[in-house]
């Protein structure tokens, strides 16, 4: 079966630095995949290659078998890919409803777009903020508005770069539940390094290390893998011997 999104030998070099090194990865329809790794592992560069912000130095990106390497971000979004960036990328001068409506307006008329935008904001639990100027919202609220912007057009694949960055514990738990819910209808790729969040959404995990794929498996196996502990989580503390009094 053809993967929804696949990369073949994807490589991104910046001069002598190889940020992404020969990465091959495939995500199928309605799959939930987490990309994890320590800082500098190449996750964000890989994300930018997938979303058209960087043109890869080598390799291919395939969407349902079609080569989309080098397409502009707007052309990639038009394929049916919803993208959330690490730092909330929003229209600060517009209200939440205006911004989310724009996300849907490309496919629908004004009234229907507004209805869908409102539905997306309510789905995220921020319907009450629809009239608020986005630039004045708190960081966590901005993350949710961006998620609403991504979800509203109902894309086939949603790519989220650190969706819980700056969120409270409550908002993080809510976002984990929301991502699981989104995954019922859409394939989702989550780039994250919050392990609690990764455990909460318990999905297939690809671990990046020094630009390469180190391990790729289900959450339970990856989190128990000693190589992952070595490069990312650190060695578990040696059990202390408790001397009975």
């Amino acid at each position, binding site marked *: 079966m053809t993967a929804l999104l696949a990369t073949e030998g994807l490589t991104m070099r910046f001069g002598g630095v190889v940020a992404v090194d020969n990465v091959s990865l495939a995500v199928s329809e309605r799959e939930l995949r987490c990309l994890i790794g320590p800082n500098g592992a190449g996750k964000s560069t890989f994300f930018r290659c997938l*979303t058209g*912000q960087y043109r890869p130095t080598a390799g291919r990106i395939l969407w349902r078998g079609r080569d989309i390497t080098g397409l*502009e*971000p*707007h052309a990639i*979004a*038009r394929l049916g890919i919803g*993208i959330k*960036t690490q730092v909330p*990328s*929003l*229209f*600060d*001068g*517009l209200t939440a409803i*205006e*911004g989310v409506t*724009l*996300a849907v*307006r*490309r496919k629908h008329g*004004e009234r229907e777009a507004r209805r869908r935008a409102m539905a997306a904001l309510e789905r995220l639990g921020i319907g009450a903020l629809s009239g608020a100027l986005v630039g004045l919202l708190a960081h966590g609220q901005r993350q949710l508005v961006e998620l609403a*912007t991504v979800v509203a*057009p109902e894309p086939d694949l949603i790519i989220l770069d650190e969706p819980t960055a700056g969120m409270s514990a409550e908002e993080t738990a809510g976002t984990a539940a929301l991502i699981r819910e989104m995954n019922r209808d859409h394939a989702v790729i989550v780039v994250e390094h919050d392990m609690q969040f990764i455990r909460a959404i318990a999905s297939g995990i690809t671990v990046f290390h020094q630009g390469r794929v180190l391990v790729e498996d289900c959450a339970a196996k990856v989190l128990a893998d000693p190589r992952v502990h070595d490069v990312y989580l650190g060695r578990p503390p040696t059990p202390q011997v408790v001397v009975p009094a």
Partner: protein
Amino acid sequence: MEDRRTLLQAVLALLAGGVAAWWLPQVLELFAIINATVYVAMALLALSLALVWGFGGILCFGQAAFFGLGGYAYAVAALNLPDTTYAIPIALGVPMLAAAALGYVMFYGKVSDVYMGVITLTVTLILFNFINSTAGEEWRIGAAPLGGFNGIPSTPPLNMPGDPGTALTPEQIFVIAVACLAGCYAACKLILRSHFGRVVTAIRENELRAALLGYNVRLHKLAIFAIGGLMAGLAGMLFANCVFVSPTMFSLAYSGQVIIWVMVGGVGTLLGPIIGAMLLQALTAWAGTLPEVNPNLILGLVLVVAVLAIPRGLQPTMATLLRRRAP
């Protein structure tokens, strides 16, 4: 509700234009009417930059290039064609195509904002120097000598459509200028309320997000830049009809002044730059009558004071004050 408000504002602009066009020619003398037409043409130039900069987010330091191209295209076409009415589409088309060509190079060439300012400024200065060096007899297009530093003093005014023998009077040209300004203001309002206009405004807010929603950022920027070029060209054509075309239309002074008009009027507004252009022109003209004062010094002083005292510009500040006073 918003759409109704926009429609109302557009209708009000047309009505205000109608009243000004009907009333002013009755009370003003000929010289004042010609001067008023220049003011209206400059206000239209300011409106073009207000759209491109205030809503498209493109700081064009060379809006005067399209203003000059509109004027020169009109003058050359009017001298070559039997009916000056046919020169109108040429006067609009040439600056619009020039803006589209320059915009294509800048937006598709991924030129950053700072360099965009430098490039637009350079283009207008190149045109200024080029037109200045066309004094020789060999520099003519058909029946139109480009005239170098002297410009084209023999620029014929518009005539009655279909009747080349009847040239329009300065009063009639003033009416046309006011109609063009009111019409362009109304058109800008409607453009900005349309889906295209909202996308353009969204791109100004955040280019990356607009692209990630599937909007072609470069194409939208190119389109709004070309529309701005067309409007500046129309202003140039009106200017050519009440004064005459000369290289100063491309000068650094015009390029700089139009930015000051928009800043003082309020970036991100349409009415503010129109008011700013008219007020500052009146002020500069008055300062020009004072033998001991340099008008540019006054203009610079106004800019400094405006930036410090009303950083958002005239229109937003006035609107805030009026809202506070309202019960």
